[in-house]
């Protein structure tokens, strides 16, 4: 366990050895802050006009409108952020040939994968910290949120992030090029995004299939303040699957020449 933490600390701090970590954090804060402000302003404008009544009739309250949309927008932002976070994982180490030494230290492949993944998760969590702050500021300014829904949506975003990171992390074990890793990860996320869209325009068993495989469909329930075993299980299994695949991928050095 100690080794996992040492590796995670090294991985996390490596984001701040260059400007990458700082730029990434600033970009995320800026864009997410912009989303939140626009949603607050949009809701304020609507609630004062006729649309306010329509929203009330449709049962859409402040929390649903602002945080439901906010977290769905964040999931789109994550499509851009997660590949940048994960491309460093293994691709960069393979490119720079730093893995050779790492593999000869007294660490198991599982510890290496979990340590590096945990470092990336810490970086992602650092990005998540101000999200709750936005809600608190709005609350202080007079907004009235259902905090149970907000917290569940937040948990949903966190677990969606972990699933995305695990997939990007696995892809980074497959290539020596960080750029290729980021592009491939982004490509897979785009497919997820299309799947969610496809599940809406199709029907019958096809729609059902798309809903089952699309992470965004499972995530949507969290943003609505609902938690179901099947949706949480989907994410837990996804994370477990891609981390296991990552361990298997790095152990291929046993039969490849380098």
């Amino acid at each position, binding site marked *: 366990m*100690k*080794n996992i933490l*040492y*590796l995670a600390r*090294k991985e996390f701090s*490596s984001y701040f*050895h*260059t400007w990458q970590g700082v730029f990434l954090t600033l970009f995320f804060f800026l864009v997410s802050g912009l989303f939140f402000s626009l949603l607050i302003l949009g809701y304020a404008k609507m609630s004062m006009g006729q649309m306010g009544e329509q929203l009330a009739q449709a049962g859409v309250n402040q929390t649903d409108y602002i945080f439901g949309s906010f977290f769905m927008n964040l999931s789109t932002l994550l499509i851009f952020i997660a590949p940048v976070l994960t491309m460093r994982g293994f691709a960069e180490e393979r490119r*720079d*040939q*730093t893995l*050779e*030494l790492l*593999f*000869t*230290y*007294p*660490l*198991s492949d599982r510890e290496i994968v979990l340590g590096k993944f945990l470092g990336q998760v810490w970086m992602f969590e650092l990005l998540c910290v101000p999200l709750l702050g936005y809600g608190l500021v709005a609350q202080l300014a007079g907004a009235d949120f259902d905090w149970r829904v907000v917290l569940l949506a937040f948990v949903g975003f966190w677990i969606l992030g972990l699933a995305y990171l695990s997939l990007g992390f696995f892809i980074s074990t497959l290539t020596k090029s960080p750029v290729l890793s980021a592009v491939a990860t982004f490509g897979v996320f785009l497919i997820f995004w299309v799947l969610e869209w496809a599940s809406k325009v199709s029907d019958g068993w096809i729609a059902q299939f798309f809903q089952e495989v699309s992470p965004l469909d499972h995530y949507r329930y969290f943003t609505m303040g609902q938690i179901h075993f099947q949706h949480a299980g989907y994410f837990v299994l996804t994370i477990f699957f891609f981390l296991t695949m990552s361990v298997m991928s790095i152990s291929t*050095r*046993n*039969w*490849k*020449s380098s």
Partner: protein
Amino acid sequence: MAQILQVEDVSKKFASRLAVNQLTLSISSGEIVGFLGPNGAGKTTAMRMICGFFPPSSGRILIDGVDIQQEPTTAKKMIGYLPETVSLYGDMRVVEYLNFVAAVKGVGFLSRAKAVKEKIEQCGLGDVSKRLIGRLSKGFKQRVGLAQALLGDPKLLVLDEPTSGLDPKQISDIRALIHGLKKDRAVLFSTHILPEVSMLCSRVVMLDQGRVLASGTVEELEAHLSEDFQIQVTILGRSKTTEAVHVLQGIEGLKDIHFVVAESEQVVLTCRAPAQLEFRNVITERLSKQGISVIEIKREQLTLEEIFLRLLK
């Protein structure tokens, strides 16, 4: 002396290519063993297996009696490895990187700072300890590589071409460092610089196409290769040349006797003697008896290059 490394009948196959073929090798504490071979001989593959980078296809590797495949973490704690291409985290500072390595190698929190400081001093990194590794010269990077290998005080040091690409001063420093390291550990190192092996190693293992071509001390390899060797006898007095030739002809076993006049009164006689013959005393005694002054008796020694090339033939 305790055997630190035992490589038993180890082979490594990549697809259809046999990179290492039934390698057997052992190194005891206090020994420096040189690993020689042309490019592609399997040295790096063998070293990577010894360090647990990947497992052998067959055979087993024991580090101080611990099987590296059965108990990799325990075995790897006893190994310090310097790879051929020393690729370190360029965006980390030297001291930060060494602290990380010490931590994963299991150096306790309380003794970590002291251990890192000690290795920094030992490897002459004091002036650059706060600098980013990526901005260091190749020589300093090599020292950082060596420092990380030494952390955790491993019983076995595996150094893959530790002096390649360094300037003469750096080479000399690293050699001195390696020589000082053998005291209480086993060292296996590969190099292309053959005189380096003669200088540092107690034993040599020569590899070619994945198999051991020869192993032993430089003298053993030489004796194994040459049935007889050349002797040079320098005497004083040109007038004594014919007499000296007769004396040498009278010693059983010496053959192909020739002479050349070196300078002024010195004459150099050459002959061939069987490897097992103790010739030096006999020649001196017989020539002295005839009143011939012997200035020098030299035995021609094969260089490691010559041994290496002859073995490869």
